[in-house]
């Protein structure tokens, strides 16, 4: 049933509203193009779309972009992977051993409350300006969202599901892995999606502050050279990566859960 609704949505007709949306976008692009090319708006403040495309194409072809792109993607994947593993893992360890949660929760809440960007100077001091400090920052950005989403999801397992497990004399590990993990999956994926977007924010910020490579570094460099088209290009690229990353997790969620969740 859910599948049918989805395909129906995809075949939605092109409405007047859609037309207006496209026209608005086109108008904005044309405005940028005309104003910058005619010199009414300085090239430093705004970029013409054709210049953005040109600069982007050049960067891609001459090989300046790829190492930076790869650096950022690597940092995001490693940092995010780490926060997902620790967040989900610790969540279930806490469910298995509530005493541990009682002990650790106050520390985790305290660290979670610290604005992560404020400890970047410390992280640089400890881990240098390279790969490691970025990973730690992304980890701190994402791990608590994933941890608390996992925990809430597991704790909100329907009481009836737990009673069924008790009737069949499931032990604690079976109850956690056969009942609470699957019951918490939607909530876990929610946490993953939320922290995926912030992971990229974190890494770009860190790279802008102190780095020798990465898209954030490229952004600062372009800004220093007053290369506004390049700034625009990198911003667009980062946005696309962010969207793709969240989309990837949604796809994973769909492939895992769509069969049994309604909607």
């Amino acid at each position: 049933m859910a599948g049918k609704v989805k395909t129906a949505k995809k075949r939605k007709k092109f409405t007047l509203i859609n037309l207006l949306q496209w026209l608005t976008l086109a108008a904005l692009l044309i405005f940028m193009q005309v104003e910058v090319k005619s010199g009414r708006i300085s090239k430093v403040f705004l970029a013409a779309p054709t210049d953005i495309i040109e600069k982007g194409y050049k960067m891609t072809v001459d090989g300046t972009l790829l190492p930076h792109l790869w650096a950022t993607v690597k940092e995001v994947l490693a940092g995010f992977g780490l926060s997902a593993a620790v967040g989900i893992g610790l969540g279930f360890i806490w469910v298995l051993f509530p005493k541990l949660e009682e002990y650790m929760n106050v520390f985790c809440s305290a660290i979670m409350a610290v604005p992560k960007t404020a400890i970047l100077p410390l992280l640089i001091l400890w881990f240098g300006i390279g790969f490691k400090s970025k990973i730690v920052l992304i980890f701190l950005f994402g791990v608590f969202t994933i941890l608390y989403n996992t925990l809430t999801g597991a704790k909100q397992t329907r009481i009836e599901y737990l009673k069924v497990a008790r009737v069949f004399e499931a032990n604690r590990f079976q109850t956690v892995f056969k009942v609470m993990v699957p019951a918490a999956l939607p909530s876990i994926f929610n946490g993953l999606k939320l922290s995926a977007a912030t992971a990229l924010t974190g890494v770009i910020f860190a790279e802008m502050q102190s780095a020798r490579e990465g898209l954030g570094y490229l952004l600062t460099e372009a800004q220093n050279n007053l290369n506004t088209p390049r700034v625009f290009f990198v911003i667009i690229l980062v946005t696309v990566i962010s969207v793709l990353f969240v989309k990837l997790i949604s796809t994973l969620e769909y492939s895992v859960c769509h069969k049994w969740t309604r909607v």
Partner: protein
Amino acid sequence: MPTIRIQNVSKSYINSEGEPTNALSDINLTINEGEFVSIVGPSGCGKSTLLEIVAGLMPRTSGDVYLDDKLVEGTSKDIGVVFQDASLYPWRTIKRNIGLGMDIAKIPRKEQEEKIARYIDLMNLNGFENKFPAQLSGGMRQRAGIARTLVMNPKVVLMDEPFSAVDHLTRCSLQDELLRIHKEEKKTLLFVTHDINEAVYLSDRVILLTPRPGTIQKEYKIKRDYEMKRDDVTLIELAGKIMADITRGRDYNENVEYMI
């Protein structure tokens, strides 16, 4: 031969206002092997509480529950429970839901096949083995819930308002199926319901509980020496009698003045 013996069972708890509340008070009940016993009573009389105590899902305040003269402490392999809304795991297919108990008991999947197939057959779930619960009707889901319990071959099956979430016609056919299965499998059945007609149609014995704190107000034995239809006069009369007893309440004499 008694299977379940409930002896002086009471249950009290502290409610949300911090006052002690008696849910059940001094329940004594013996259920014989193969017997079908229903518990009815006004809502809040503690029928579900009693069932959960027998299932070992809820601690009792005092008294004892025996299964074949052995004290029931916690849940037991010999006592199966069918829940109100089936409570199937939505992430498991019907087949895997039925196999849940065997999965937990670490029985290899290969050895499960035959048993699962038998109960899929018994509960008329053929063709739905690989569907997920969300793809099934309420009646189908409850059939799968019953299969999940029966496949573990418990001596006693407890049912907590199992048909309350389905429409009337589905409920009637599920009742008929339950009677057929009770005949085939010869399980001892303790059945909680708020539907008096359902109770008299299914059971060998109906237990009426009083409002809170629940005590046994009356027992009704039903002679099932011939096949009874739903509209059998004795059943309809008995249902009427139970209904009248519920309205009279705990203390017959006190209420009788208002009724005249």
